[in-house]
């Protein structure tokens, strides 16, 4: 097939996606970025061009830096934990375990349950004293702990919820991908005396790489995106100890209605994510065996 024809075919295939993406993502995003160069228009006061002033404001904003630090820490824990757990879960429910269907269901529940409701349930788990966690720890004579109300534990408590939510979600994709690994490879490895672990490390894992790339990119983005539980559980508190970038953006944009500053933050967040995603992509894509 000629190059021209290939290109035409490809464009036709991409057309619907491109139009929709442009209409609901790119155009609004660009408008948002442009907004970052202006002041926030309010009522009768129109927007005024201020160049990079908003970015300067950002550099001086302690909450931004706190959110940034929180988020890095949050990402550093949630990403590896959720991806590894997802893989472990997928392997478990791919095998012929007794009650496999129920177990799949169990792992998948976080995806099914609405976050607004489930965050409230987690709130109960973390409630000091009679919360589930304290009830269980109480059996061992441990004193009550204010999990969400203390600066030391709040971020970890929130991370646990994120891992819970994400691992089951990614598990699904690993599970589906496991099906694409031919059986005879497992057999060949078994003959060669490979333990399950060796087979996993030397064969399964490399062959799952396309999915891992997908999951990793999503996990990184998710670590900067998943804030529903923050909204319900801590609202960024105590004293911004659980403020994450997106939550902060949300607060600025939809509570403070400072759209210009929110756009500025969004631009920064996007730049961070784009760099992270690109690094992963460029680094991994070349090492992936696709077929």
């Amino acid at each position, binding site marked *: 097939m000629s190059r021209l024809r290939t290109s035409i075919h490809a464009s036709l295939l991409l057309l619907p996606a491109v139009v929709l993406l442009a209409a609901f993502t790119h155009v609004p995003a660009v408008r948002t970025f442009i907004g970052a160069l202006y002041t926030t228009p309010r*009522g009768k006061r129109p927007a005024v061009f201020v160049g990079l002033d908003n970015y300067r404001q950002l550099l001086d904003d302690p909450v931004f830096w706190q959110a940034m630090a929180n988020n890095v820490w949050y990402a550093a824990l949630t990403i590896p934990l959720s991806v590894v757990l997802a893989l472990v879960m997928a392997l478990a429910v791919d095998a012929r375990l007794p009650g496999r269907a129920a177990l799949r269901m169990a792992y998948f529940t976080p995806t099914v349950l609405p976050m607004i409701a489930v965050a409230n349930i987690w709130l109960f788990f973390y409630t000091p004293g009679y919360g589930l966690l304290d009830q269980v720890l109480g059996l061992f004579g441990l004193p*009550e702990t204010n999990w969400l*109300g203390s600066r030391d534990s709040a971020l970890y408590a929130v991370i646990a919820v994120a891992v819970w939510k994400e691992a089951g979600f990614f598990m699904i994709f690993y599970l589906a991908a496991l099906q694409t690994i031919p059986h005879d490879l497992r057999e060949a490895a078994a003959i060669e005396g490979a333990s399950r672990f060796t087979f996993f490390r030397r064969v399964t894992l490399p062959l799952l790489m396309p999915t891992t790339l997908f999951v990793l990119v999503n996990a990184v983005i998710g670590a900067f995106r998943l804030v529903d539980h923050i909204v319900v559980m801590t609202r960024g*508190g*105590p*004293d911004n100890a659980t403020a994450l970038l997106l939550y902060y953006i949300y*607060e600025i944009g939809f509570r403070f209605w400072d759209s210009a500053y929110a756009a500025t933050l969004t631009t920064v967040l996007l730049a961070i994510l784009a760099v992270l995603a690109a690094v992963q992509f460029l680094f991994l894509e070349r090492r992936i065996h696709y077929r």
Partner: protein
Amino acid sequence: QTTVNMYYPVAVGGPITKIIDKMVADFSAAHPDIKVNPIYSGSYQDTITKVITALKGGNAPEFAVILSTDMFTLIDEDAIVPFEELVSDADKAWLDSFYEGFMLNSRTGGKTWGIPFQRSTIVQYWNKDAFREVGLDPEVPPTTWDEMVAFAERLTKRDASGNVVRWGIQIPSSGFPYWLFQALTTQNDVILANEAGTKVTYDDPRVVEALRFWVDLSRKHKVHPEGIVEWGTTPKDFFEGKVAMMWTTTGNLTNVRTNAPFPFGVAKLPSKVRGGSPTGGGNFYIFKNASPEQRNAALAFIKWATAPEQAAAWSIATGYVAVTPAAWETDAMKKYVAEFPAAAVARDQLDVAVAELSTHDNQRVTKALNDGLQAALTGAKDPAAAMKDAQAEADRVLRPFQ
């Protein structure tokens, strides 16, 4: 026929949407020329988000129920019209028929921007069984800070290994800690913001003192849980006997009444220099983009909904404070209060109520305070330092409005 859309939040339990629908239906029966379209719009926060999104999209509702504290935000967005522009001279009196405490949050610059609708104050609830257990008179709540500390010390119970099984007092500090803190500052006789909403006094020594008192409840007196106390679980803590006394909105009255497994009392908040509580809750606002007919239609509904009979019915159904003295004079309300005297506590407190903290760029300014409060409560900062930082941040935010 004129059609008007009304956004309204649901902030308390129960079939609120049904009650509103019924209210609208009743209104329609009386005003066939007006069609009110009630649009449930989530929580307070969801509602303001939806309203401003629609506003920025050029499609704001004609009127809405929104937090009284969002008044400045709406003014700054040039979204709402003051009622003085709408009401006839005859109706001016109507604007003065509400409790003054509620109007503090509805007026600025001499104009009335909101009409009180679902309003509240903070009250204290106490567990009579717990009082009895430690030898306190179950019918007598603390009336001063010192009393409160003394009571709380007796009420705080520890098990053999020293772990606390019941705290004496709990003042929630998540979500909108500033609101509860405002009760403490009011009692210490200091007002946090000026009426114009352009200045705050976070670093006033009396404010710091109030904060230190709050912090000391847990750090020094050890009668209050440490760290941040969740607003949403506080009533449950109370039901569970984990706390003997709690401060929360009067909007919780119905909830406590149905769920507390022990006899309980409701009282005004204790006083220090003076008594008092901020008001809370939502007002009606009319939006600029409504046509003159729609504005009148909306006004007609608001008037109808705040008329004594309606206000009384609404108060009984939800636990909010009926917004006019006249409403308390209706037969229904009198009967209700007779049956359930606690329902009148919040109203009685209105005499000493102050405006809920509300300024221009309100959310940012209150966040500065919230952060400072939480920093102090979690021990990250000394109260004085926390309030100094909060003041600095608030000043920075408010500078453009001064």
